[in-house]
């Protein structure tokens, strides 16, 4: 090992990170990691090129921000358009939107649980790489796995019938939806609700027996390596229960006390974005507390979203089975809010149960049979329209400004993945500092880092373990002049 004052280690590109991603670890003269950065080199400029477009086009343009969660953008956009065009959709349209949205949340969460993050837990974090993928999951859970996959595909196809398409749906319009549900679609929906419930209860059972039944995995979830005491934010209904489609934004502090509860129209009073020169991603934070750097605690404005945050801000769940699972998680982990990042996987399973129960309620609701699914806007559009939903990965805000013809003049988008960007950086930094000592990159580093970001967001680990493949990490050692000293492959 050459002697040097300061070095950096580059992991580039991180496979399975949407829009790539690069981790740079900086080492001191002893070779100990003193700081790790996650850089996101991705920029397309939606906020700018929405300007000049007819506002209604935003509902088909913005889903192209993310092909993994296009329905979330479509729905946030459609709600912002209701607001911009001053029109309230008929009750049937609201219920059909929420129904399609819950189907989307369920299938997206199921994808994450079984295909993306599941392999770590179901197959096990210590299992050989070649088994830690969906094929390994199927081997472990048997025929059940194939059944889950077929139910998921059926739900996706149902959503295509409701929304027009599953990837980049077009059906949302200001004031409602483009077409009522045909009787045969309603019949198919009602015939499928029990399968959705079955998917949820089975997933919960799998989680409890395989994950919680294994003391080493439980220990990992409740490990300090992934613990950050931050603020949490999520949408809640009028009884402070989680809702994916609508409600008020509620923020709790690191001790679980309500810090704020507000309508999304007031978001500018609470939220600001911090910029770091070394990454294209912006870091939203709680403006009233302030940006204090990549640190946790009540004096730092870092605000976490996504499944765990949503449960942390909710007093209870709106459906019975989800409520039971919710109580069980908080009792087991012994704190609220739960600050263990890896408990996000548990929270996601509870949300799967909620989504399935909500699908059943809405599918069986006679209101969805109505042909009245659209109120045509009649007022002068603008100047402002703001919409919010809970995307699978957290709070998603679309904010538009238009002229009197409804032509967009300004747009601001706060995208789910951004909120957690600061916390993900903290998790990676914590893992790198713990594991890179004396110039040695220890074996478990890569998986520790991967597990840190995978918990937050399949958009950051899109397709993880989808197919078998050998994992490699490229480690490049540089001196302080930026000259490459050594390059090696590290295998997990």
């Amino acid at each position, binding site marked *: 090992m050459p002697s040097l004052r*300061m070095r950096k280690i580059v992991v580039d*590109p991180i496979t*399975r990170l949407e829009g790539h991603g690069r981790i*740079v670890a900086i080492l001191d003269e002893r070779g100990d990691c003193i700081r790790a*950065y996650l*850089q996101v*080199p*991705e*920029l*397309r*400029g939606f*906020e*700018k*090129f929405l*300007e*000049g*477009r*007819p506002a*209604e086009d935003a509902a088909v343009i913005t889903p*192209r921000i*993310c*092909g*993994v969660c*296009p329905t979330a953008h479509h729905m946030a956009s459609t709600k912002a358009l209701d607001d911009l065009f001053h029109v309230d959709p008929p009750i049937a349209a609201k219920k059909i939107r929420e129904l399609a949205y819950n189907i989307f949340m369920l299938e997206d969460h199921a994808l994450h649980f079984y295909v993306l993050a599941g392999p770590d837990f179901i197959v096990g974090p210590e299992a050989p790489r070649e088994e830690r993928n969906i094929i390994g999951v199927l081997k472990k859970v048997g025929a059940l796995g194939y059944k889950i996959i077929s139910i998921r*595909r059926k739900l996706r196809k149902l959503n295509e019938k409701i*929304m*027009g398409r599953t*990837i*980049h749906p*077009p059906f949302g*319009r200001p004031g409602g939806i*483009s077409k009522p549900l045909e009787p045969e679609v309603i019949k198919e929906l009602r015939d499928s609700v029990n399968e959705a419930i079955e998917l949820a209860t089975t997933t919960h059972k799998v989680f409890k027996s395989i994950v919680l039944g294994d003391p080493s995995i439980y220990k990992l979830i409740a490990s300090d390596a992934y613990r950050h005491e931050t603020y949490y934010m999520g949408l809640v209904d009028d009884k402070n229960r989680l809702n994916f489609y609508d409600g008020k934004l509620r923020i709790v502090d690191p001790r679980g006390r309500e810090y704020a509860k507000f309508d999304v129209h007031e978001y500018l009073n609470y*939220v*600001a*974005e*911090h*910029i*770091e*020169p*070394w*990454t*294209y991603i*912006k870091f939203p934070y709680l403006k009233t507390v302030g940006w204090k750097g990549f640190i946790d605690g009540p004096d730092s404005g870092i605000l976490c979203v996504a499944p765990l945050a949503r449960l942390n801000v909710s007093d209870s769940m709106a459906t019975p089975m989800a409520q039971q699972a919710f109580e069980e998680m908080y009792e087991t982990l012994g704190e609220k809010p739960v600050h263990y990042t890896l408990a996000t996987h548990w929270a996601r399973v509870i949300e799967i149960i909620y989504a399935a129960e909500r699908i059943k309620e809405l599918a069986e609701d006679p209101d969805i049979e109505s042909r009245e699914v659209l109120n*045509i806007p*009649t007022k002068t559009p603008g100047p402002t329209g703001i919409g919010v939903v809970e995307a699978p990965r957290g709070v998603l805000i679309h*904010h538009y400004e238009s002229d009197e*013809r409804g*032509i967009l003049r*300004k747009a*601001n988008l*706060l995208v789910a993945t951004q909120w957690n960007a600061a916390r993900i950086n903290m998790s990676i930094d914590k893992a790198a500092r713990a594991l890179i000592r004396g110039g040695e990159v220890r074996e478990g580093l890569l998986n520790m880092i991967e597990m840190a970001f995978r918990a937050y967001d399949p958009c950051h680990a*899109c*397709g*993880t373990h*989808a*197919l078998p*493949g*050998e994992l*490699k990490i490229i480690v490049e050692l540089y001196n302080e002049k*930026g000259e490459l000293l050594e390059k090696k492959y590290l295998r997990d």
Partner: protein
Amino acid sequence: MLSEGKVRIAFYWMASCGGCEEAQVDAVSDEPSLINILDIVFWPVAVDFKKEDVEKLPDKSVDVALINGGVRLSEHIEMAKLLRRKSKIVIAYGACSSWGGIPGLANLYSREEVLSRIYSEVPTVYEKDKKPTVKYITEEGIELELPEVLPILLPLNAVIEVDYYIPGCPPTPETTLNALKILLSGKLPPKGSVLGASQRALCDECPLNVTKPEKILIKNLSRIYNTRVDPGKCLLIQGIPCLGPSTRGGCTALCPRVAMPCIGCYGPLETHTDYGGKVISFLASIIDSKDEREIARIIEEGVPDPAGLAYKFTLPASRLRLNLMKWGGRGA
């Protein structure tokens, strides 16, 4: 094109949303046996092979590379060139790679305007002097690099030679499987062909087409937001600018099926470079008037953003591109 009984295939994404990957996964789920004949050598979203692994491959040792997303960052050019060198066949997969796609609308503005909007003008940013920089020295004294954002977004064929195109935003699983079957058959069409989609306009496969008269003539064009659409009738005869007649079929008319207009994601029927120009001239041709000023007024009312309507997926590949290049991203 089979080598050792398997097709060696590479996937790559540039400025894209991940929807193309979802579509590819859906396609494989519909025909899982494909896994047995595909030897995946590179797929950053799902399989852990790195750029270095691709660099080590002999030239032309990859049978086919499917590249999605537009060329937006400096590193995209580098990867595209690398994959071109290593692959026998390079395919532009999806609208962004074929013609720029929706992120190509950024070419209506300069790079500086885009960056300024995102990093200083939006109401949530208060630190007006900060923005990402290509080279940055950290407080530890180490340089961190970011890839450079190019002045405009380019389609794949602006930086490398492209053999075939698979259209759509995203291509449906069916389009994808059709294209793969053509590739596997070994009966390759002429270079530059579109694979997997229809050879006819979208209207041909649209269930609403039966309500469309031989010759459409309308008095007005309308925006959809304040129009009540009859879901059983052709959108064009209801005055909604549906791009079906100008757009290649292949998706089974998913949007018109839910009473929403085609927005043109399968792109032009021919390989002509000015899809948008064709859209506008078609719309002008169905207006029931001989008075040019009246036609202009009707188009202006129903289509307040002609560039956004007609070039939603194809701006970087259009004739306007020359002007955009000349003006450094401004214009149109």
